């Protein structure tokens, strides 16, 4: 129950965060993206634009909820439980951002969710690697919690 609630918050915060960031960046001038001064302009945009501020806040909410869930549940459970978030983001893109989504894109996203389920099945529950890796899962979306990282960390 507690896990369901926290993971629901994580999924919604992550999807809505992406929508806010997407909305906040839509009218950002393309030419500014790849210039040295563009980075400064982008930095200022992130801390002044209401959509960007909301997006970053929600990202922090997502991280807090995700890391909290990982502190008592295994990645092999959390990963597939949050994978349907890809579908939530797609629905929000369609109905809120008004993007037109081709059948191929729907099919591809469903495949990605299925692929995530399969990859998650290979993460052993309660292994020591996962337990010690929890502190390393700082990131900005659900794909960032990864055993690869933990293993790399261990090997050093």
């Amino acid at each position, binding site marked *: 129950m507690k896990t369901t609630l926290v993971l629901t918050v994580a999924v919604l915060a992550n999807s809505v965060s*992406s929508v806010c*960031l997407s909305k906040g960046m*839509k009218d950002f001038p393309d030419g500014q993206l790849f210039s040295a001064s563009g980075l400064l302009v982008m930095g200022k945009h992130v801390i002044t634009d209401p959509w960007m501020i909301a997006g970053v806040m929600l990202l922090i909410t997502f991280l807090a909820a995700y890391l909290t869930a990982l502190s008592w549940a295994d990645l092999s459970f959390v990963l597939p439980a949050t994978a349907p978030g890809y579908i939530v983001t797609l629905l929000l893109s369609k109905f809120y951002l008004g993007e037109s989504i081709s059948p191929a894109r729907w099919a591809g996203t469903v495949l*990605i969710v299925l*692929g995530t*389920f*399969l990859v998650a099945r290979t993460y052993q529950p309660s292994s020591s690697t996962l337990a010690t890796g929890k502190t390393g899962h700082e990131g900005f979306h659900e794909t960032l919690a990864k055993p690869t990282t933990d293993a790399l*960390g261990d090997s050093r």
Partner: protein
Amino acid sequence: MINFLLLSTVILAGAAGDVSVAHGMKRIGEVNRFSLIALVRLAVRIAKNKYIGLGIFWKAVAFFTFIALLARADLSWVAPATAISFVVETLAARYLLREHVSTTRWAGASIVCLGVALISL
């Protein structure tokens, strides 16, 4: 094409950030004291740790590249496309870390790969 380059940067910088932060936190050790003084000391140690600083740098690179990508591409492509990180991790586990990668994981990574190809059509 530029979008795929940006996507690669998001994934690789994000992974570099994860590796650095995880390495830094392992050097700091397990957090098991939660008094105010212990937490302040912990914050100072984290702030001084160069691996964590490097990790935050890579995370910042990943974030700014991610929002630059959002300025150029549809969210309905960017969000699912980031799942390609599962493929990158699987390849890194096999070829950089020389870990054993199970058939299930290869199958999962291949399906994700196929999915990313489909959404990019």
